[in-house]
């Protein structure tokens, strides 16, 4: 048993070192323990817990680096000045900090005087926790579903097909599955397929209007990547590979990443690195594509929604994804009374459920506490009637958070909002 314990710690340490490149090492060397990152972290702000200070969450990886890899560590080791070895007790203590109290939202990078990318480093550190078997049960369960069905919620092709047929009936628009040579291949998150099928309807309506030739793959309709959330590179690669191979098999020119934050990061930014090559198609986020189609005039300006609305910035799409202007242009085109939250854009608060936290029931109370920051932002807008949340995961977190607080506010996706502006034009056509 003792050997096994040491081995688990050793496995984690080896992964920590493997994933400590010059970038991560420079973060560990530059951090002056100023504590500023705590002031940006919604887990610290809403609980007051000092242990939720972002840089503190990196401690096991930092310790392994300073003990084994840091330049000049040999001299410090000879003098007995290196930190003690990471052990299983430390990994057990840190596992909730690494998985439950970090959304990998990167808000802390903004306030850090040294510019540490703590979110990116947490992602790398999770590789060690995952390899050593320190993963929350909820995420393990989601991973099992993915292995069995390709969906973290267990959504099968049969269920997807049923939803697609229902949408076809509702909209009167044919949706192709496995159409070889289509220009675009759309992917969804399981939450969209089962919880928000109106998103599929929105795609059908918008793409019909824009004349977009699109299809869905029967082999890879699910875009989310629990491997990224757990921190398992091989598993994350397997999930990305399924999507990439399906898109290349269908010979599409573009892969559409859905209104889901981490799915976009997984395939757009991490995907080619996981696969070790560039793709034969371009990855485009649905918000990016809709903005492009709108600017090209392929989606006309319809009747704007008159309600007072605001926009949530999903971290992986905006702050870590780079799509800052696109959703705002679409909001301005679709909403007559668009009001930004205080701190909107790159400094916006995470919903509290990203980075696998919402799939981890153990973290539910922490997630709910973190949502207090979101509530404060929403409460500050007088007369707010709806919030647009272009990420299905954030959207479900919003719905939970608003319900728990008995806040009456509609939550909707950006594609649906845009599609609904076409209602009058569609009626004229009919």
């Amino acid at each position, binding site marked *: 048993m003792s050997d096994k314990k040491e081995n688990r710690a050793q496995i984690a340490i080896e992964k920590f070192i493997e994933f400590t490149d010059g970038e991560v090492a420079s973060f560990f*060397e530059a951090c002056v323990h100023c504590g500023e990152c705590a002031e940006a972290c919604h887990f610290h702000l809403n609980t007051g817990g000092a242990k939720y200070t972002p840089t503190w969450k990196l401690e096991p990886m930092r310790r392994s680096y300073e003990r084994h890899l840091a330049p000049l560590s040999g001299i410090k080791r000879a003098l007995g000045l290196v930190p003690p070895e990471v052990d299983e007790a430390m990994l057990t203590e840190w596992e909730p900090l690494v998985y439950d109290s970090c959304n990998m939202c990167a808000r802390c990078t903004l306030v850090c005087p040294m510019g540490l990318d703590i979110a990116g480093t947490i992602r790398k550190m999770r590789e060690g926790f995952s390899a050593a078997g320190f993963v929350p049960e909820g995420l393990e369960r989601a991973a099992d579903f993915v292995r069995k069905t390709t969906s973290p919620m267990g959504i099968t092709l049969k269920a997807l097909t049923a939803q697609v047929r229902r949408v076809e009936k509702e909209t009167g628009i044919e949706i192709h599955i496995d159409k070889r040579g289509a220009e675009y291949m759309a992917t969804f998150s399981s939450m969209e397929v089962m919880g928000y099928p109106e998103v599929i309807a929105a795609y059908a309506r918008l793409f019909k209007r824009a004349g977009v030739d699109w299809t869905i793959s029967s082999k890879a309709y699910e875009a989310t990547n629990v491997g990224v959330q757990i921190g398992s590179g091989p598993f994350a690669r397997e999930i990305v590979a399924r999507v990439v191979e399906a898109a290349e098999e269908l010979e599409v020119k573009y892969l559409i990443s859905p209104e889901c934050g981490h799915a976009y990061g997984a395939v757009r930014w991490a995907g080619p690195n996981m696969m070790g090559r560039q793709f034969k198609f371009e990855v485009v986020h649905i918000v990016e594509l809709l903005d492009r189609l709108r600017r090209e005039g392929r989606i006309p300006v319809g009747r704007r929604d008159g309600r007072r609305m605001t926009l949530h910035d999903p971290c992986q799409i905006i702050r870590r994804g780079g799509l800052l202007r696109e959703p705002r242009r679409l909001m301005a085109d679709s909403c007559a009374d668009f009001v930004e939250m205080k701190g909107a854009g790159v400094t916006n608060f995470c919903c509290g459920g990203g980075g696998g936290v919402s799939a981890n029931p153990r973290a539910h109370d922490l997630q709910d506490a973190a949502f207090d920051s979101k509530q404060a932002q929403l409460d500050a807008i007088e007369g707010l009637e709806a919030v647009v949340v272009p990420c299905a995961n954030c959207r479900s977190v919003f719905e939970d958070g608003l319900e728990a607080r008995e806040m009456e506010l509609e939550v909707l996706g950006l594609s649906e909002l845009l599609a609904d502006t076409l209602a009058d034009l569609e009626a004229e056509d009919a």
Partner: protein
Amino acid sequence: MSFLAFVEGPLFYIAAAVFLLGAAWKILGLIRLGRRPDLAPPRGSAAWGFVRGNLRHFVPRGIFTRRTWLHIVAGYSFHIALAVLVFFGAFHIAFIERLTGLSWQALPRWGFIVAAEIAFAGLIVLWVRRISDPVMRQITRAEDHASTILTFLVMLTGCLALQESHASLRAIHMLFVDIWLLYFPFSRLMHAFTFVLSRGHSGATYGRKGINL
């Protein structure tokens, strides 16, 4: 050889050599660790992101300042005043001139004293925050205190030596300067150089994505 001659002579040269070689070794070591190649098609420039990241983090973002103003004011006060003391103190310029032949305009005496007061105030505020704030107590390690205390002693002995009333005061100041230089490459003090890399790496990562964090 007098004690003053020793700390200004051989010990200083050894300390300066350790400082320069150690710092260079550390920086080169960090660069040698490399950076994983990024195959994702870029939306922006990583090189420009490296530069922007370095510049952007000099300017605190307004939304955070209500909670971070004390650290910002104390941090900037200390660092700027310390740089002024080191590079524009008349005795420091004279010392550098003796070593290198280079010289420039020194601060007047009153300017040196004002800068010293600002530097002391900044450093003391940062240290009090470190020992009193629960977050700071959680994340602070012994080496953080060591760096702070050593820097404080260098500044304090420097002020004591200001009057040049006694050679031994100057010798004590130089002794702490030597210790500070010897300790530098092995400590958090290296952030004076490594911040360029950490800001630059993040700036490059996000710059490729077309975002300026």
